[in-house]
């Protein structure tokens, strides 16, 4: 049992830049069917290690469904997902993932520190290493002075920051963040994106979903998603160039209409 935990920590401690340009996530011909609704339709994409990949699309486009399949909460109807070369769902993969849900998903009756302690514990962190990770995380999301405050008394922005901290406290190699900036004020939103860039430099791969197209420019690469179909994927700059538009919103509409013409 403990061997498993040790392996987990070893995996996390390994410098991610060893991976070089190895793909972090490989998705092939992925389909997810809910009754008659096809939420993900024959999706194939590759996410590189150390990049921030933005899943862009309106509500109901399949972003959350895709992320839930990546973390293993949903089983694909068909197709495969590999993370770090391993088929998901797998316990080894689970240990190296960090997941932030759309809801802030915190224990409101516990303090910030107790939430971080619980979530880091279930990822196998303990002792001094755990305390260090918690303290570092609290400082990173600027909650060190409220560490012992009960989360129920926190504002929306504070909860969102703590939620991010809980997703990252065990130093995952791949962070999957579902709309992390919803309801976050512009200043904090900027801080989040700066932090994501820093995590990329530390070798952490980030998959982030958003329906706010103005945020897309912060991502390394983008996947434009609509009705479960990948409309296009490339760097933000390339997508603007290809579409000949000067903003992401127009670019999205361009790719959406082009897809319709094709089909």
């Amino acid at each position, binding site marked *: *049992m*403990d061997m*498993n*935990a040790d392996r*987990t920590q070893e995996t996390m401690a390994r410098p991610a830049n060893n991976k070089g340009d190895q793909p972090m996530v490989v998705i092939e011909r992925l389909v997810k069917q809910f009754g008659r609704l096809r939420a993900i339709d024959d999706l194939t994409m590759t996410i590189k290690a150390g990049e921030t990949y933005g899943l862009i699309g309106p509500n109901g486009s399949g972003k959350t469904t895709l992320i839930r399949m990546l*973390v*293993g*909460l*949903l089983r694909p109807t068909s197709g495969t997902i590999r993370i770090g070369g391993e088929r998901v769902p797998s*316990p080894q993969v*689970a*240990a190296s*993932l960090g*997941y932030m*849900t*759309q*809801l*802030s*998903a*915190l*224990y*409101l*009756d*516990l303090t910030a520190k*107790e939430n971080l*302690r*619980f*979530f880091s*514990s*279930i*990822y*196998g962190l*303990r002792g001094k290493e755990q305390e260090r990770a918690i303290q570092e995380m609290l400082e990173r999301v600027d909650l060190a002075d409220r560490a012992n405050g*009960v989360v129920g008394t926190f504002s929306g922005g504070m909860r969102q920051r703590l939620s991010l901290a*809980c*997703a990252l406290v065990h130093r995952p190699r791949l962070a999957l963040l579902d709309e992390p900036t919803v309801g976050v004020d512009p200043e904090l939103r900027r801080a989040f994106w700066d932090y994501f860039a820093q995590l990329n430099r530390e070798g952490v791969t980030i998959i982030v979903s958003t329906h706010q197209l103005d945020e897309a420019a912060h991502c390394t690469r983008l996947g434009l998603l609509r009705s479960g179909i990948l409309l296009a994927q490339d760097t933000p700059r390339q997508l603007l160039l290809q579409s000949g538009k000067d903003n992401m919103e127009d670019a999205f509409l361009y790719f959406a209409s082009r897809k319709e013409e094709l089909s």
Partner: protein
Amino acid sequence: MNFARIAALASRIIRQLLRDRRTLALIFVVPVVIMTLLYLVLTNTSSVHTLALVRPSGPGSNQINTLLDSLLPGKDTLHVVNINASQVDSTLKNGDADAAVVFPADFAQAVAAGQQPAVQIVLEGSDPTVASAMNDLAGNIVRQLGIALYVAKLKQSQPGQFAPTSSAGSLPLPLTISQPRYIYGGSQYTYNDALAPVFIGIFSFFFVFLLTSIAFLRERSQGTIERVLVSPLTRAELVLGYIGGFTIFALVQSIVVLLFVVFVLRVHYSGNLALVFLVTVLLTIGSVNLGIFLSTFAQNEFQVVQFIPLVLGIQVFLSGVFWPVAQLPGALQPISYILPLTYANNALRGVMLKGNTFADIAGQLAALLLFALLMVLLSTLAMRRRVV
């Protein structure tokens, strides 16, 4: 399986419970208040009781009935109602009398023939204090009647025949008194004694069910369950963590209730504490998992509360808390035997009142274990089905 992670989950649950003052009050204060109320209600009985008489009715009964009337205490001490033999059980069950003295119809003839007819005392029995007092009172009346009849017989007989026929020196009464029959309960325990053990079971079952189902509902509605499920924590570890956290709580609760019952209410207690805990542990494991299972069918706290009559109401009425299962209508008895509290009640009463050993309650423990395992299976399946 990783015990450190299970421990992390269990300690988180305890920490959350400790933070919630109202829930703490619910767990520790409410049982004590209810036990006190129950104690007060059950020991507060009226002082004038009613005795139902089934008088002898055959030839020669008039003289005996006159004698009987002269022996009955005054109306400020005892009410007397006359009934016939077929009305005994219904009169007592309706609460119209606390006890009955039943003379056989041919009592007078049997006495005259020297047959020592048996007089039956029937006790309502739901309040053992009353039952015991009525047993003494009715017994005395019948004994006095016996003495009076003996004396009357001596007066009628020839002076030369005056000699005691009993070798033991006690009066050879011309009648016998049968063992008292109880409508409810029995002579060996009091009502408080009979209720205290089952309330330990009810409290741990009910509060743990309520706490788990709401805690688990919150895990779902706040989305934290997804984070937990995404982590390397397995479903088995999740279930065990929940069982661990809530079982520790239920055990502390049953210690509080037990100490209160034994040392403050001074309820009769003769069993092994470890066995009481064993029953509580098994019951709690079942309850935790029933809570998880049912909470997956609820969308909010109010819907959880709606499960209470289903889970608690049925069990309180059918598991032998107030009425023995054997006295329930035949159609309801099979239901009693699928309820975990039926087995918990039997085991707890057996241990606390009769000093039963592990071997004595092994059957009940096996039933509780089976229930617990079934609930673990259901909650694990429900988690798979509803959450993921």
